[in-house]
Protein backbone atom coordinates (compact mmCIF):
# COMPACT_ATOMS: atom_id res chain seq x y z
CA UNK A 1 0.00 0.00 0.00
CA UNK A 2 1.31 3.39 -0.90
CA UNK A 3 -0.53 5.94 1.21
CA UNK A 4 1.90 8.52 -0.07
CA UNK A 5 0.94 7.83 -3.69
CA UNK A 6 -2.75 8.14 -2.84
CA UNK A 7 -2.21 11.39 -0.95
CA UNK A 8 -0.19 12.72 -3.83
CA UNK A 9 -2.90 11.86 -6.35
CA UNK A 10 -5.43 13.80 -4.31
CA UNK A 11 -3.07 16.72 -3.78
CA UNK A 12 -2.36 16.92 -7.50
CA UNK A 13 -6.02 16.81 -8.49
CA UNK A 14 -6.82 19.44 -5.88
CA UNK A 15 -4.11 21.71 -7.28
CA UNK A 16 -5.52 21.21 -10.77
CA UNK A 17 -8.92 22.14 -9.38
CA UNK A 18 -7.52 25.40 -8.04
CA UNK A 19 -6.05 26.09 -11.48
CA UNK A 20 -9.42 25.29 -13.01
CA UNK A 21 -10.99 27.94 -10.79
CA UNK A 22 -8.53 30.52 -12.11
CA UNK A 23 -9.68 29.63 -15.62
CA UNK A 24 -13.29 30.14 -14.53
CA UNK A 25 -12.58 33.47 -12.87
CA UNK A 26 -10.81 34.77 -15.93
CA UNK A 27 -13.07 33.37 -18.66
CA UNK A 28 -13.34 33.98 -21.52
CA UNK A 29 -10.04 35.83 -22.08
CA UNK A 30 -7.95 33.97 -19.50
CA UNK A 31 -5.80 37.07 -19.07
CA UNK A 32 -4.41 36.70 -15.59
CA UNK A 33 -3.64 39.73 -13.44
CA UNK A 34 -0.44 39.81 -11.38
CA UNK A 35 -2.06 38.20 -8.35
CA UNK A 36 -3.54 35.41 -10.44
CA UNK A 37 -0.25 34.83 -12.26
CA UNK A 38 1.54 34.55 -8.93
CA UNK A 39 -1.04 32.10 -7.66
CA UNK A 40 -0.91 30.05 -10.87
CA UNK A 41 2.88 29.89 -10.70
CA UNK A 42 2.76 28.70 -7.09
CA UNK A 43 0.19 26.04 -7.95
CA UNK A 44 2.13 24.81 -10.99
CA UNK A 45 5.35 24.55 -8.97
CA UNK A 46 3.51 22.51 -6.36
CA UNK A 47 1.95 20.35 -9.07
CA UNK A 48 5.38 19.55 -10.49
CA UNK A 49 6.51 18.46 -7.04
CA UNK A 50 3.47 16.20 -6.72
CA UNK A 51 4.10 14.62 -10.10
CA UNK A 52 7.77 14.04 -9.22
CA UNK A 53 6.69 12.42 -6.00
CA UNK A 54 4.22 10.20 -7.81
CA UNK A 55 6.91 9.07 -10.26
CA UNK A 56 9.17 8.23 -7.37
CA UNK A 57 6.44 6.35 -5.53
CA UNK A 58 4.84 4.40 -8.36
CA UNK A 59 7.77 3.75 -10.66
CA UNK A 60 10.36 2.79 -8.07
Amino acid at each position, binding site marked *: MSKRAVDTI*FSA*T*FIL*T*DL*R*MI*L*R*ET*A*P*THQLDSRQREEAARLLDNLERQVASLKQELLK
Partner: protein
Amino acid sequence: MRCGAGIEARQVNELAINIDPIQAGGRLTADAMKAIIAYGDGYSVCDNCRKPNRLDYISKPPIAEFHKEVASWLGMDVVRTVPGARRAFQAVARTYVGKADPVLLTSLSHYTEFLAVEESGGVAREIPADPGHIVTADAAAVKAEEVRRDTGKYPVLAIIDQVDYQYGNLHDVRAIAKALHQYDIPVLCNGAYTVGILPVDGKALGVDFIAGSGHKSMAAPAPSGILATTAERAGEVFRTTAITGDVSGRKFGIKEPAMMGCTLMGATLIGMMASFPHVKERVKHFDRELANNQAVLSDLLSIRGTRILSEMPRKHTLTRVDTTASFDTVAQTHKKKGFFLASDLGAKGIAGIIPGATRIWKFNTYGITAAQAQYLATAFTGIAQEYGLAIQ
Protein backbone atom coordinates in the same frame (compact mmCIF):
# COMPACT_ATOMS: atom_id res chain seq x y z
CA MET B 1 -12.35 16.14 -24.98
CA ARG B 2 -14.39 13.31 -23.53
CA CYS B 3 -14.80 12.21 -19.94
CA GLY B 4 -16.61 8.98 -20.78
CA ALA B 5 -18.02 7.11 -23.75
CA GLY B 6 -20.00 9.65 -25.72
CA ILE B 7 -19.77 12.21 -22.92
CA GLU B 8 -18.06 15.46 -23.77
CA ALA B 9 -16.26 17.14 -20.90
CA ARG B 10 -18.39 20.14 -19.99
CA GLN B 11 -16.25 23.25 -20.17
CA VAL B 12 -18.80 26.03 -20.43
CA ASN B 13 -17.78 27.71 -17.17
CA GLU B 14 -14.08 27.53 -18.04
CA LEU B 15 -14.45 28.86 -21.57
CA ALA B 16 -17.26 31.37 -21.17
CA ILE B 17 -19.04 33.76 -18.86
CA ASN B 18 -22.18 31.76 -18.17
CA ILE B 19 -25.24 33.91 -17.48
CA ASP B 20 -27.81 31.14 -17.60
CA PRO B 21 -30.57 32.32 -15.25
CA ILE B 22 -30.84 29.07 -13.30
CA GLN B 23 -27.19 28.01 -13.23
CA ALA B 24 -25.42 30.98 -11.70
CA GLY B 25 -25.72 30.18 -7.98
CA GLY B 26 -25.12 26.48 -8.39
CA ARG B 27 -21.63 26.71 -9.83
CA LEU B 28 -19.35 24.74 -7.54
CA THR B 29 -16.69 26.15 -5.29
CA ALA B 30 -13.21 24.67 -5.54
CA ASP B 31 -13.81 22.89 -2.25
CA ALA B 32 -16.97 21.29 -3.57
CA MET B 33 -15.10 20.04 -6.64
CA LYS B 34 -12.36 18.61 -4.42
CA ALA B 35 -14.87 16.96 -2.11
CA ILE B 36 -16.61 15.36 -5.08
CA ILE B 37 -13.31 13.97 -6.32
CA ALA B 38 -12.88 12.31 -2.93
CA TYR B 39 -16.53 11.31 -2.39
CA GLY B 40 -17.78 10.50 -5.89
CA ASP B 41 -18.49 6.84 -5.13
CA GLY B 42 -22.10 5.84 -4.45
CA TYR B 43 -22.67 5.57 -0.72
CA SER B 44 -19.50 7.48 0.05
CA VAL B 45 -20.74 9.33 3.13
CA CYS B 46 -22.04 6.15 4.73
CA ASP B 47 -18.71 4.55 5.76
CA ASN B 48 -19.24 5.57 9.37
CA CYS B 49 -23.01 5.30 9.61
CA ARG B 50 -23.86 3.80 12.99
CA LYS B 51 -27.06 3.41 14.94
CA PRO B 52 -29.60 4.95 14.74
CA ASN B 53 -28.63 4.65 11.06
CA ARG B 54 -29.85 7.88 9.66
CA LEU B 55 -28.01 10.33 7.44
CA ASP B 56 -28.40 13.34 9.70
CA TYR B 57 -26.78 11.46 12.59
CA ILE B 58 -23.50 10.69 10.79
CA SER B 59 -20.60 12.53 12.44
CA LYS B 60 -17.77 11.52 10.08
CA PRO B 61 -17.86 13.33 7.72
CA PRO B 62 -19.59 15.95 9.89
CA ILE B 63 -23.09 15.62 8.43
CA ALA B 64 -24.86 15.94 11.78
CA GLU B 65 -22.99 19.15 12.50
CA PHE B 66 -23.81 20.46 9.02
CA HIS B 67 -27.53 19.97 9.63
CA LYS B 68 -27.33 21.93 12.88
CA GLU B 69 -25.30 24.71 11.30
CA VAL B 70 -27.68 25.12 8.37
CA ALA B 71 -30.67 25.30 10.73
CA SER B 72 -28.97 27.93 12.86
CA TRP B 73 -27.81 29.90 9.82
CA LEU B 74 -31.39 30.07 8.53
CA GLY B 75 -32.86 30.97 11.91
CA MET B 76 -34.80 27.73 11.97
CA ASP B 77 -34.73 24.76 14.35
CA VAL B 78 -34.47 21.62 12.24
CA VAL B 79 -33.09 20.90 8.78
CA ARG B 80 -33.04 17.96 6.44
CA THR B 81 -31.24 17.71 3.15
CA VAL B 82 -33.42 16.85 0.17
CA PRO B 83 -32.90 16.18 -3.55
CA GLY B 84 -33.85 19.69 -4.60
CA ALA B 85 -36.28 22.29 -3.27
CA ARG B 86 -39.08 20.51 -5.15
CA ARG B 87 -38.71 17.53 -2.82
CA ALA B 88 -39.14 19.90 0.09
CA PHE B 89 -42.42 21.17 -1.43
CA GLN B 90 -43.46 17.56 -1.89
CA ALA B 91 -42.66 16.55 1.70
CA VAL B 92 -44.59 19.48 3.12
CA ALA B 93 -47.55 19.03 0.76
CA ARG B 94 -47.76 15.33 1.58
CA THR B 95 -47.94 16.26 5.24
CA TYR B 96 -50.60 18.95 5.15
CA VAL B 97 -52.58 18.62 1.92
CA GLY B 98 -55.42 16.15 1.50
CA LYS B 99 -57.89 15.48 -1.29
CA ALA B 100 -59.45 18.69 -2.65
CA ASP B 101 -57.72 20.86 -0.05
CA PRO B 102 -56.99 24.34 -1.36
CA VAL B 103 -53.36 25.45 -1.35
CA LEU B 104 -52.16 29.00 -1.95
CA LEU B 105 -49.51 29.46 -4.60
CA THR B 106 -48.90 32.61 -6.61
CA SER B 107 -49.20 33.61 -10.24
CA LEU B 108 -45.40 33.52 -10.34
CA SER B 109 -44.93 30.14 -8.62
CA HIS B 110 -42.55 27.52 -9.94
CA TYR B 111 -44.23 24.58 -11.67
CA THR B 112 -42.92 22.07 -9.12
CA GLU B 113 -45.07 23.74 -6.46
CA PHE B 114 -48.11 22.97 -8.59
CA LEU B 115 -46.95 19.38 -9.03
CA ALA B 116 -46.46 18.97 -5.28
CA VAL B 117 -50.02 20.17 -4.69
CA GLU B 118 -51.39 18.00 -7.48
CA GLU B 119 -49.63 14.89 -6.26
CA SER B 120 -51.13 15.39 -2.83
CA GLY B 121 -54.62 15.71 -4.27
CA GLY B 122 -54.90 19.40 -3.46
CA VAL B 123 -56.19 22.30 -5.51
CA ALA B 124 -53.89 25.18 -6.47
CA ARG B 125 -55.23 28.69 -5.88
CA GLU B 126 -52.97 31.47 -7.09
CA ILE B 127 -52.44 34.78 -5.35
CA PRO B 128 -52.23 37.22 -8.28
CA ALA B 129 -49.12 39.35 -8.56
CA ASP B 130 -49.69 43.08 -8.94
CA PRO B 131 -48.95 44.95 -12.19
CA GLY B 132 -45.35 45.36 -11.08
CA HIS B 133 -45.09 41.56 -10.74
CA ILE B 134 -44.96 41.67 -6.95
CA VAL B 135 -47.02 39.44 -4.65
CA THR B 136 -48.32 41.42 -1.69
CA ALA B 137 -49.65 40.55 1.74
CA ASP B 138 -52.94 42.26 0.92
CA ALA B 139 -53.41 40.12 -2.17
CA ALA B 140 -52.60 37.01 -0.12
CA ALA B 141 -55.23 37.88 2.49
CA VAL B 142 -57.83 38.64 -0.19
CA LYS B 143 -57.15 35.30 -1.85
CA ALA B 144 -57.39 33.41 1.44
CA GLU B 145 -60.80 34.99 2.03
CA GLU B 146 -61.86 34.23 -1.54
CA VAL B 147 -60.94 30.57 -1.09
CA ARG B 148 -62.91 30.49 2.15
CA ARG B 149 -65.97 31.87 0.36
CA ASP B 150 -65.58 29.40 -2.53
CA THR B 151 -64.82 26.23 -0.60
CA GLY B 152 -65.97 26.81 2.94
CA LYS B 153 -62.46 26.49 4.30
CA TYR B 154 -59.21 28.37 4.34
CA PRO B 155 -56.22 27.05 2.42
CA VAL B 156 -54.30 24.36 4.32
CA LEU B 157 -50.89 25.58 3.13
CA ALA B 158 -49.24 28.47 1.30
CA ILE B 159 -46.07 28.18 -0.75
CA ILE B 160 -44.55 31.59 -1.46
CA ASP B 161 -41.44 32.19 -3.58
CA GLN B 162 -39.19 34.71 -1.88
CA VAL B 163 -37.69 35.53 -5.26
CA ASP B 164 -39.62 34.26 -8.26
CA TYR B 165 -38.07 32.55 -11.25
CA GLN B 166 -39.83 34.68 -13.84
CA TYR B 167 -38.79 38.21 -12.90
CA GLY B 168 -36.32 37.63 -10.09
CA ASN B 169 -38.44 39.95 -7.97
CA LEU B 170 -38.19 39.94 -4.18
CA HIS B 171 -41.54 39.41 -2.48
CA ASP B 172 -42.27 40.46 1.09
CA VAL B 173 -42.55 36.98 2.59
CA ARG B 174 -42.54 38.36 6.10
CA ALA B 175 -45.68 40.44 5.51
CA ILE B 176 -47.34 37.65 3.55
CA ALA B 177 -46.65 35.09 6.30
CA LYS B 178 -47.99 37.48 8.92
CA ALA B 179 -51.18 37.96 6.93
CA LEU B 180 -51.70 34.26 6.29
CA HIS B 181 -50.96 33.22 9.86
CA GLN B 182 -54.05 35.20 10.86
CA TYR B 183 -55.96 32.39 9.13
CA ASP B 184 -53.71 29.69 10.64
CA ILE B 185 -52.29 28.89 7.22
CA PRO B 186 -48.77 27.43 7.47
CA VAL B 187 -46.32 29.14 5.13
CA LEU B 188 -43.54 27.49 3.17
CA CYS B 189 -41.02 30.01 1.86
CA ASN B 190 -39.50 28.85 -1.41
CA GLY B 191 -35.95 30.13 -1.10
CA ALA B 192 -34.61 28.39 -4.19
CA TYR B 193 -33.25 31.72 -5.45
CA THR B 194 -32.34 33.20 -2.08
CA VAL B 195 -30.94 30.57 0.33
CA GLY B 196 -27.21 30.66 -0.41
CA ILE B 197 -27.46 33.89 -2.40
CA LEU B 198 -28.53 36.55 0.10
CA PRO B 199 -29.17 36.53 3.86
CA VAL B 200 -32.30 34.56 4.81
CA ASP B 201 -33.61 34.47 8.38
CA GLY B 202 -36.61 32.24 8.89
CA LYS B 203 -37.40 33.65 12.31
CA ALA B 204 -37.45 37.19 10.97
CA LEU B 205 -39.61 36.05 8.06
CA GLY B 206 -41.92 34.24 10.48
CA VAL B 207 -42.37 31.25 8.19
CA ASP B 208 -43.03 27.65 9.09
CA PHE B 209 -40.77 26.15 6.43
CA ILE B 210 -37.92 27.21 4.18
CA ALA B 211 -36.98 25.27 1.08
CA GLY B 212 -33.56 25.87 -0.45
CA SER B 213 -31.91 24.56 -3.58
CA GLY B 214 -28.34 23.29 -3.44
CA HIS B 215 -27.87 23.18 -7.19
CA LYS B 216 -29.57 26.49 -7.83
CA SER B 217 -28.15 28.64 -5.07
CA MET B 218 -25.79 26.81 -2.70
CA ALA B 219 -22.92 25.93 -5.03
CA ALA B 220 -23.77 22.25 -4.88
CA PRO B 221 -24.31 19.43 -7.38
CA ALA B 222 -27.82 18.47 -8.48
CA PRO B 223 -30.12 17.31 -7.13
CA SER B 224 -29.65 18.83 -3.70
CA GLY B 225 -31.42 21.16 -1.35
CA ILE B 226 -32.70 21.68 2.15
CA LEU B 227 -35.95 21.76 4.04
CA ALA B 228 -35.84 23.78 7.25
CA THR B 229 -38.61 24.11 9.76
CA THR B 230 -39.51 25.12 13.29
CA ALA B 231 -39.46 22.86 16.35
CA GLU B 232 -43.24 23.09 16.32
CA ARG B 233 -43.60 21.76 12.77
CA ALA B 234 -40.65 19.35 12.76
CA GLY B 235 -42.56 16.53 14.38
CA GLU B 236 -45.20 16.75 11.67
CA VAL B 237 -43.15 16.90 8.49
CA PHE B 238 -40.27 14.85 9.89
CA ARG B 239 -42.48 12.30 11.62
CA THR B 240 -40.82 8.91 12.06
CA THR B 241 -41.98 5.62 10.63
CA ALA B 242 -44.54 3.49 12.46
CA ILE B 243 -44.99 0.73 9.90
CA THR B 244 -44.36 -2.95 10.63
CA GLY B 245 -43.97 -5.81 8.15
CA ASP B 246 -46.80 -8.28 8.67
CA VAL B 247 -44.63 -11.32 7.85
CA SER B 248 -41.19 -10.27 9.00
CA GLY B 249 -42.34 -8.09 11.86
CA ARG B 250 -39.67 -5.60 10.83
CA LYS B 251 -39.73 -2.00 11.94
CA PHE B 252 -37.57 0.74 10.55
CA GLY B 253 -36.25 2.69 13.47
CA ILE B 254 -36.32 6.46 13.14
CA LYS B 255 -36.46 6.68 9.38
CA GLU B 256 -38.71 9.50 8.17
CA PRO B 257 -41.35 8.59 5.56
CA ALA B 258 -41.57 12.10 4.11
CA MET B 259 -37.82 11.93 3.45
CA MET B 260 -38.04 8.33 2.18
CA GLY B 261 -35.38 7.47 4.75
CA CYS B 262 -31.95 8.83 3.97
CA THR B 263 -31.79 11.48 1.27
CA LEU B 264 -28.46 12.69 -0.14
CA MET B 265 -26.00 9.88 0.38
CA GLY B 266 -22.89 10.88 -1.49
CA ALA B 267 -21.45 13.52 -3.82
CA THR B 268 -24.47 15.82 -3.66
CA LEU B 269 -24.38 16.17 0.10
CA ILE B 270 -20.62 16.39 0.40
CA GLY B 271 -20.57 19.04 -2.32
CA MET B 272 -23.15 21.11 -0.49
CA MET B 273 -21.24 20.68 2.77
CA ALA B 274 -17.89 21.65 1.26
CA SER B 275 -19.36 24.80 -0.27
CA PHE B 276 -21.25 25.78 2.85
CA PRO B 277 -18.52 27.88 4.56
CA HIS B 278 -18.09 29.82 1.31
CA VAL B 279 -21.84 30.16 0.87
CA LYS B 280 -22.21 31.53 4.40
CA GLU B 281 -19.60 34.11 3.58
CA ARG B 282 -20.82 35.06 0.13
CA VAL B 283 -24.35 35.95 1.24
CA LYS B 284 -22.80 38.75 3.30
CA HIS B 285 -21.51 40.33 0.10
CA PHE B 286 -24.62 40.28 -2.04
CA ASP B 287 -24.20 44.03 -2.57
CA ARG B 288 -21.20 43.26 -4.80
CA GLU B 289 -23.36 40.99 -6.91
CA LEU B 290 -25.96 43.71 -7.29
CA ALA B 291 -23.24 46.17 -8.28
CA ASN B 292 -22.04 43.80 -11.01
CA ASN B 293 -25.63 43.34 -12.15
CA GLN B 294 -26.14 47.09 -12.25
CA ALA B 295 -23.01 47.57 -14.35
CA VAL B 296 -24.43 45.20 -16.96
CA LEU B 297 -27.92 46.71 -16.81
CA SER B 298 -26.57 50.21 -17.31
CA ASP B 299 -24.99 49.22 -20.60
CA LEU B 300 -27.97 47.14 -21.68
CA LEU B 301 -30.32 50.04 -20.99
CA SER B 302 -28.08 52.32 -23.01
CA ILE B 303 -29.16 50.38 -26.08
CA ARG B 304 -32.22 52.27 -27.26
CA GLY B 305 -35.44 50.26 -27.03
CA THR B 306 -34.21 47.90 -24.32
CA ARG B 307 -36.40 47.58 -21.22
CA ILE B 308 -35.94 45.80 -17.92
CA LEU B 309 -39.12 43.96 -16.97
CA SER B 310 -37.98 43.06 -13.46
CA GLU B 311 -38.45 45.45 -10.56
CA MET B 312 -36.00 48.33 -10.45
CA PRO B 313 -33.72 48.96 -8.72
CA ARG B 314 -32.79 45.32 -8.77
CA LYS B 315 -32.83 43.36 -5.52
CA HIS B 316 -31.66 40.15 -7.19
CA THR B 317 -29.31 39.33 -10.03
CA LEU B 318 -31.81 37.21 -12.00
CA THR B 319 -33.24 39.73 -14.44
CA ARG B 320 -35.89 39.67 -17.17
CA VAL B 321 -35.24 41.92 -20.11
CA ASP B 322 -37.25 42.98 -23.15
CA THR B 323 -35.21 43.63 -26.30
CA THR B 324 -38.12 43.52 -28.74
CA ALA B 325 -37.40 47.11 -29.76
CA SER B 326 -33.63 46.61 -29.94
CA PHE B 327 -32.02 43.23 -30.66
CA ASP B 328 -35.21 41.78 -32.11
CA THR B 329 -35.24 44.43 -34.83
CA VAL B 330 -31.88 43.03 -35.96
CA ALA B 331 -33.30 39.50 -35.92
CA GLN B 332 -35.97 40.49 -38.45
CA THR B 333 -33.41 40.74 -41.23
CA HIS B 334 -30.43 38.74 -39.93
CA LYS B 335 -29.73 35.51 -41.79
CA LYS B 336 -29.56 33.70 -38.44
CA LYS B 337 -32.83 35.35 -37.41
CA GLY B 338 -33.24 35.36 -33.62
CA PHE B 339 -30.29 33.06 -33.19
CA PHE B 340 -27.84 35.83 -34.04
CA LEU B 341 -27.74 37.19 -30.49
CA ALA B 342 -26.79 33.96 -28.75
CA SER B 343 -24.42 33.24 -31.62
CA ASP B 344 -22.67 36.61 -31.42
CA LEU B 345 -22.49 36.42 -27.64
CA GLY B 346 -21.06 32.92 -27.96
CA ALA B 347 -18.37 34.23 -30.28
CA LYS B 348 -17.42 36.67 -27.53
CA GLY B 349 -17.30 33.89 -24.93
CA ILE B 350 -20.67 34.46 -23.33
CA ALA B 351 -23.05 31.56 -22.76
CA GLY B 352 -26.38 30.92 -21.12
CA ILE B 353 -28.94 32.88 -23.13
CA ILE B 354 -31.58 30.75 -24.80
CA PRO B 355 -30.67 30.44 -28.49
CA GLY B 356 -33.25 32.23 -30.60
CA ALA B 357 -34.40 34.62 -27.88
CA THR B 358 -34.29 38.27 -28.90
CA ARG B 359 -37.53 39.53 -27.40
CA ILE B 360 -38.03 38.64 -23.76
CA TRP B 361 -35.29 36.70 -22.06
CA LYS B 362 -33.59 36.30 -18.71
CA PHE B 363 -30.04 36.28 -17.50
CA ASN B 364 -28.25 36.07 -14.18
CA THR B 365 -24.95 37.75 -13.37
CA TYR B 366 -24.53 36.07 -9.98
CA GLY B 367 -21.00 34.90 -9.24
CA ILE B 368 -19.15 36.68 -12.02
CA THR B 369 -16.27 39.00 -11.20
CA ALA B 370 -16.38 42.77 -11.68
CA ALA B 371 -14.06 42.39 -14.67
CA GLN B 372 -16.34 39.80 -16.20
CA ALA B 373 -19.36 42.04 -15.59
CA GLN B 374 -17.63 44.84 -17.47
CA TYR B 375 -16.69 42.48 -20.29
CA LEU B 376 -20.32 41.32 -20.50
CA ALA B 377 -21.66 44.86 -20.50
CA THR B 378 -19.29 45.87 -23.28
CA ALA B 379 -20.20 42.78 -25.26
CA PHE B 380 -23.88 43.74 -25.30
CA THR B 381 -23.23 47.31 -26.44
CA GLY B 382 -20.59 46.12 -28.90
CA ILE B 383 -23.07 43.80 -30.61
CA ALA B 384 -25.68 46.55 -30.64
CA GLN B 385 -23.23 48.98 -32.29
CA GLU B 386 -22.20 46.38 -34.82
CA TYR B 387 -25.78 46.25 -36.09
CA GLY B 388 -26.37 49.99 -35.98
CA LEU B 389 -28.58 50.09 -32.90
CA ALA B 390 -28.54 53.45 -31.20
CA ILE B 391 -26.66 53.79 -27.95
CA GLN B 392 -28.04 56.48 -25.66
